[in-house]
């Protein structure tokens, strides 16, 4: 490699090798030992088909894992708000990837949603079906403010077996699901804040409302694009 002939900017130090193209050095080839290390991995995740569905896992396994996750998070957070924020951020990562996966799996019929209502309907039906096996129970628009929408689930799968103690009155563990929605909306370029609220109704004590509050810019864009 002819790196000695190239004058590096004084701030940059030659760093360790990274695969790819470095503008000051040109294409960088990794040492052959590294290549063989990758090739020798007995199974590569890129060989798996994304269309393959994993065999379904028992709901109680999921619930156990989720409850352990909450327990762990609770120990490391100070109070309900931080706990919810953390759960939300866990879900966010899932949502980011999930949009990509669901679009890949749909193949040619996949469509990029550009309107607020359409992307919400997509979450309400498709996403909910893939995640929880059924569409959500309701999609509503807030009467008070322009930028708020609500997705309603009468019996949220994740918190089915969780009862919240009295001194955690405001906690709704569906903050995790809210995070998933937020992740999906963000990677679909609909910046929003999503929060989960328990609003019990007759016969559905766990009924949860996911409050979606879009950024101002999203509404503005929508108005410019579709106001004719």
């Amino acid at each position, binding site marked *: 490699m002819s790196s000695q002939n190239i004058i590096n900017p004084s701030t940059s130090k030659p760093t360790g090798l990274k695969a790819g193209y470095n503008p000051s050095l040109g294409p960088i080839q990794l040492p052959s030992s590294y290549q063989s*290390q*990758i090739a*020798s*991995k*007995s*199974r*590569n*995740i890129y060989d*798996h088909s994304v269309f393959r569905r*994993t*065999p*379904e*896992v*028992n709901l*109680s*396994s999921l619930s*156990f*894992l989720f*409850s*352990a*996750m909450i*327990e*762990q998070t609770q120990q490391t957070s100070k109070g309900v708000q931080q706990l919810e924020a953390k759960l939300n951020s866990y879900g966010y990562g899932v949502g980011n990837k999930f949009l990509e996966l669901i679009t890949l799996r749909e193949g040619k019929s996949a469509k990029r949603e550009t309107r607020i209502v359409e992307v919400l309907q997509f979450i309400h039906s498709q996403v909910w079906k893939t995640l929880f096996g059924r569409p959500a129970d309701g999609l509503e628009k807030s009467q008070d403010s322009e930028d708020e929408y609500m997705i309603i689930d009468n019996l949220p799968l994740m918190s089915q077996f969780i009862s919240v103690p009295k001194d955690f009155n405001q906690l709704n563990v569906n903050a995790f699901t809210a995070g998933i929605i937020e992740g999906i909306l963000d990677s679909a370029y609909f910046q929003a804040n999503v929060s989960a609220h328990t609003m019990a109704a007759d016969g559905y004590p766990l009924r949860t409302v996911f409050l979606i509050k879009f950024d101002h810019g999203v509404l503005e864009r929508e108005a410019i694009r579709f106001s004719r």
Partner: protein
Amino acid sequence: MGYSIGIRLIEDFLAKTGTGRCVSFKETAEVISKIGFKIFLNIIPTITNWTSDGKTFSLIIEENPLAEFVELPDDGKSNKELWYSNVLVGVLKGALEMVQLDVDVFFVSDVLRGDATTELRLKLNKILKDEIPAGED
């Protein structure tokens, strides 16, 4: 994490299956693999590598739902130090302890680390005595 899951999971397991007490550790192994793993993770690990004293065996997990689409980062550390599915270890330990079996559970190999198989090893230390919880005479 796994341990506290295991402690609670065993109740669910017993309630669902109604299996009775196992006569031997061999039978326990069968139940763990064919019923336990089947119910909770929908897989049936293979039981092998029994030691001659019948106290240690291995579970070979062919398809690990926890590790689906997982790849460990290539930082040279994680595939030496991290047992990605170590939560299973805790679950087994916790669950078996609740049925009076003191076992050591540990991973021997993991496909995520580039090994050929994912192998969990269970070693029976001793059978705990049935004890009545304090305050419940």
